[in-house]
């Protein structure tokens, strides 16, 4: 215990202090308005204010849609990519290196890249779709609420798929070949093998991918900041961006902390689920 004490103290300072301080801030009215830092205890007033704030609810709704869709899309696409990479023809290192590129690009650089791809006047996407005859005139992909939110989603899916695909590929490679051979001997086709051998075997990996992806989708900020600034008309304001805007742009530190604590609470619950999924169990115990 004595030997781990320094590490525990450092961890407490680095992780524990900001968390506790953030919770305390959420219980105070803290503002720099007019230049002065004013602090006063207000109890749960900031959290009560959340319930009456239509912008918070809009951001919560946007975030829910974004997270659910992102998890579904990333999981399905990643599973498909992992299956292709696990196929004898997809085992070339070239494909794996190619796959990792979107994940390796720095988040802000990725957002700037997509800003130009989606540009309403010069964007590559418009150019390609028009040259293929799919659209008659250039579209403003980030111009309407529905389109803007979904393009943010597409961009984040594009960035998230590589890591999850590699995670699933690792899971697929752990499936014993003897199970496939036994299934084949029993007359199972490719689809039946996938449904009754592959999926049950990598169920744990899929569960971890889902939980991790949900946590990550709650943390999306860079894409919103660079691509849309929450617009048009708050259509792409996600909770993380809202917490930033209220805290650093409006300097309403107490209310911003309350929003951040909501995100923290949701993330904490999901992280608990993640730990539960990974926790070693007795042989035969169900997960």
């Amino acid at each position, binding site marked *: 215990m004595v030997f781990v004490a320094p590490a525990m103290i450092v961890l407490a300072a680095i992780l524990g202090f900001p968390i506790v301080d953030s919770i305390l801030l959420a219980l105070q009215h803290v503002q*720099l308005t007019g230049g002065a830092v004013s602090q006063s205890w207000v109890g749960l007033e900031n959290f009560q204010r959340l319930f009456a704030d239509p912008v918070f609810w809009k951001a919560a709704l946007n975030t829910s849609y974004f997270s659910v869709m992102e998890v579904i899309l990333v999981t399905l696409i990643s599973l498909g990519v992992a299956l292709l990479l696990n196929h004898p023809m997809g085992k070339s290192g070239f494909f794996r290196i190619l796959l990792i590129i979107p994940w390796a690009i720095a988040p802000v650089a990725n957002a700037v890249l997509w800003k130009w791809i989606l540009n309403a*006047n010069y964007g590559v996407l418009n150019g390609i779709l028009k040259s293929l005859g799919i659209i008659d005139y250039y579209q*403003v992909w980030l111009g309407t609420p529905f389109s803007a939110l979904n393009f943010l989603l597409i961009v984040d899916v594009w960035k998230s798929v590589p890591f999850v695909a590699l995670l699933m590929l690792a899971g697929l490679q752990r499936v014993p070949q003897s199970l496939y051979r036994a299934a084949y001997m029993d007359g199972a086709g490719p689809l039946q093998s996938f449904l009754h051998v592959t999926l049950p075997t990598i169920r744990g990996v899929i569960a971890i991918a889902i939980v991790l992806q949900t946590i990550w989708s709650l943390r999306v900020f860079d894409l919103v900041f660079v691509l849309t*600034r929450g*617009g*048009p008309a708050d259509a792409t304001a996600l909770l993380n961006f809202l917490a930033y805007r209220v805290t*650093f742009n409006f300097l309403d530190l107490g209310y911003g902390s309350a929003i951040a604590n909501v995100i923290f609470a949701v993330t904490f619950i999901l992280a608990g689920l993640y730990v539960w999924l990974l926790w070693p169990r007795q042989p035969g115990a169900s997960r």
Partner: protein
Amino acid sequence: MFNSLSRRNFLQAGAAAGAAAAMPGFMTRQAHAEAVALNVFAPLPPDPAPPGAAKFSEEAFEKWKAANAATVEYETLAWPQLHDRMATAFASGSSPWDITYNCGWVPEFQSFLTPYADKLPKALVDDLPASSFSTVTVDGKRYGTIFTLSLLTLFYNKEHLEMAGFKAPPKNWDEFKTYGKELTRDGRHGLVLNYGDPAGIGGTASYWMVFLQQAGGKMYGEDGLPIFKSEQGVAALQMMVDMMPSTDPGSISYASINDATNVLLSGRASMMMNWPFMWNAGNDPNQSQVVGKLASAVLPAGPAGSASIDGTDAWTITKSSKNPEKAQQLIEFYLDADVQKRQVLDTGWLPIRLSVLADPEVQAKAPNAAVVLEQAKHPYDSFVTPDYNQVTVAVGTEVQKALQGQKTAAQAIADAHDAVTAIVKRRG
């Protein structure tokens, strides 16, 4: 001496020598006794940056540093990140700067700043437009000095107007709408703006503030509460809505003015409201496809006449500065007539000094300067308050909803008015 050298003496002498050597600048302290280190927080070019951060008056800057025995360290950031960096530094009590750039945020950061501008030399103050101090004055004290005359004016493509049969720029709202409609042809749009970011100077809300003043309206009453839920407030937004069919539809997605400027400079739009710096960019063949075709004019008049908003680019001195006098001297250097002249000639950002604006060489290189001076004869209130960002997000978001047809102009203004009232009352 050697006879008295004991082990203790030897160790003491060694320790003394080591401690002296460890002190920075031990041997050279005398030579640098007068040196002063100044830290300046400024935007990155092409936004208005000072000598040493932008490429102008570099030789004069070196001479100033040598003559004043000062070193100047710049921390520069892209313009959209400036406010939040300052807010974080001030909130944490760790502002490292002597001088900071400010843009409409003086009321917000006022208690972290020193009212040095009350002590500027009379000759300098007399050469600045008196109105330039309005956005940097709080409770009668001047906390900053505007260093560039930066008002929104109308930039337009002369060739496009001539092709459409127009010989002069639009002078009023009716002409503005007609021009917009007629200029929307051949894959081009009559107007382009950046409506993507609701917040701050140059955001969606600030464009509406331009139209609001042209309609004869104001944001706030004498009691500080909003009064824009009015005929003028609605007319201003309706004008913007009416212009939408001839506005580049991408405007609603352009979060930065540079995005919209690129459209005008590529010849894909014919008119836009922009800041004076665009003159240089528009006539630089490396950045523009409309070189020689660009002109500027006073913004079209609404029912109450023309009006604009002020960019409010100012230099301020922080309360935490250890060398406020030297910091003020550096700001006075930034405002020196020769430096101001190079500022406009080399970067395109107009000077604020009236004598430099009247300089024939300046007027020849920046013919838009006369237009900006003319624009300055009309109202150009940016309505800055301590909660300017919050207010502009609330108003700008409602304006965006009206521009997209989600709400009528009247409903959007009513909702914005309610939101701003709540913000102002919460501020107390």
